[in-house]
């Protein structure tokens, strides 16, 4: 009796430990698949960019980086970011405010439209602007007559970048604005604050981390955008070449070290924005207070 119960227990323990091992194995397998995929798809390409860039040593690498055209491309990329991010910030704030705090007809449609750039291919976005502003385009002859250059010039590249970066700031702010409600703004206004005071002292501090998060995402996309900008830029070296376009040109010309050096520059920029983004994302829960602590 005693021994049989012991053996039952032993068998049960065996069964349990087998279950336990199966579970462990399953977990291990899933993690391994995940890691292999991660290494293949993310780590290897990044490492390849760096090794290709440094294949001939450090000095050709820096030489390629400091080439006039590469520096011009970097400058243009930064210029595009410096113009696009403030515009999207202002627009994102206004749109998220209007959509999050008020209800009006066509609100759902507006939200859908804001997401449009996510689903439209960037190349198509670029083509839209060529169709509108290009020499053969809708307003092309008028623009030509007044000597205004949009396509194959900075304005066109800005428009294309604006199109693809449209949703980023709004999408970060909207859920927060909706969750926070209007109480605090109403309280501030009744306490005598002006509209601007209410915005700067009450609304903005409540959304600042989400706003910065959205701005970083927007900047990252503006730096990296290829398709839309490619269509409208005309690839004029030193004039309308952003970094991603420059990488392609160099690569097509078999200047591999230069191409990968420029690519590594983009990579460094994106790692930097990723770090920033993580920092702001960490700060986000602070905003949640507005929702979480409502109870008491």
């Amino acid at each position, binding site marked *: 009796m005693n021994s049989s119960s012991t053996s039952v227990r032993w068998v049960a323990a065996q069964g349990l430990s087998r279950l336990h091992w199966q579970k462990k194995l399953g977990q291990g397998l899933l993690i391994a698949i995940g890691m292999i995929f991660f290494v293949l798809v993310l780590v290897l390409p990044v490492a390849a960019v760096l090794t290709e860039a440094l294949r001939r040593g450090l000095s050709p690498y820096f030489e390629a980086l400091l080439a006039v055209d590469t520096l011009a491309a970097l400058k243009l990329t930064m210029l595009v970011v410096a113009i696009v991010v403030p515009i999207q910030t202002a627009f994102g704030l206004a749109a998220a405010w209007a959509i999050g705090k008020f209800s009006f007809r066509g609100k759902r449609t507006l939200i859908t439209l804001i997401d449009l750039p996510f689903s439209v291919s960037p190349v198509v976005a670029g083509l839209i602007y060529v169709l509108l502003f290009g020499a053969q385009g809708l307003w092309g002859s008028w623009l030509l007559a007044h000597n205004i250059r949009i396509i194959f010039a900075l304005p066109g590249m800005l428009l294309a970048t604006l199109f693809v970066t449209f949703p980023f700031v709004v999408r970060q702010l909207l859920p927060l604005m909706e969750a926070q409600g209007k*109480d*605090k703004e*109403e309280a501030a206004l*009744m306490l*005598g604050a*002006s509209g601007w005071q209410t915005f700067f*002292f009450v609304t903005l*501090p409540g959304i600042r981390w989400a706003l910065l998060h959205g701005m970083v995402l927007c900047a990252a996309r503006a730096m990296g955008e290829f398709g839309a900008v490619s269509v409208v830029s005309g690839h004029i070296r030193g004039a309308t070449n952003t970094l991603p376009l420059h990488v392609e040109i160099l690569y097509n010309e078999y200047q591999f070290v230069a191409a990968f050096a420029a690519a590594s520059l983009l990579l460094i920029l994106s790692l930097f924005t990723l770090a920033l983004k993580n920092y702001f994302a960490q700060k986000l829960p602070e905003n949640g207070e*507005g929702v979480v*602590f409502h109870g008491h």
Partner: protein
Amino acid sequence: MDIKLFNISKTYAKERVLHQVNLNIRSGQFLSLLGPSGCGKTTLLRIMAGLENFEGGQVLFAGQDTANWTLKERRVGFVFQHYALFKHMRVAENVSFGLRMLPRRERPSSKLIGERTQELLRLVQLDGLGERWPHQLSGGQRQRVALARALAIEPRILLLDEPFGALDAKVRRELRLWLRSLQKQLAITTVLVTHDQDEAFEMSDHVVLLNQGRIEQEGSPQELMDEPASPFAANFLSLKPVRSSRRLQSFGEGLQ
């Protein structure tokens, strides 16, 4: 300051929520708007505050039409159910907000603002908690911060939108007795929105019972309890028979 509402109507998405409501609030009175959810009491309060527009009719503050007044010009102290404190400001900064937002030539010196803030914190019994953050306070404490913040601008009227709704029963009871005595001390015209008849009866000079956007009955708590004017009033006011007997008792004590 006395408030008069004439013929106030309001429609939300084609649904009438207020039907030609008339109301007189005497200066220094504590008035409760009582009724089930959806009866229009909060909308009426928000109309008084200037937060909602309405169709036809007038809202008079001390006999003057407020139609074109800004929120600032109304100088209304408003307390929200969920406090609406500014989470990124300390308690003292919350309380002094209204004073700090004044244009430079009207604004008191920062020393004066500091003193006034301390005074208000003492008034709501939150002495020494000025440096705390709102999330470090209990619900009852937060609501008292909200009250101090509303009082800082020396409001002409105090509007309370279910201020105890998010608090537990014990705190709620303590706070309403305390608030009632504070209101008497300050002699400030006060309108309370609530769905809890105990709360309304215990605190108010005058109770207005609302049902589906109309005033069903109004009068002193005693009048409403003694003579409910309609089946709705009788039904709504006797929802909790056990507690109402206790309420009668406490009224008896109050009369002695």
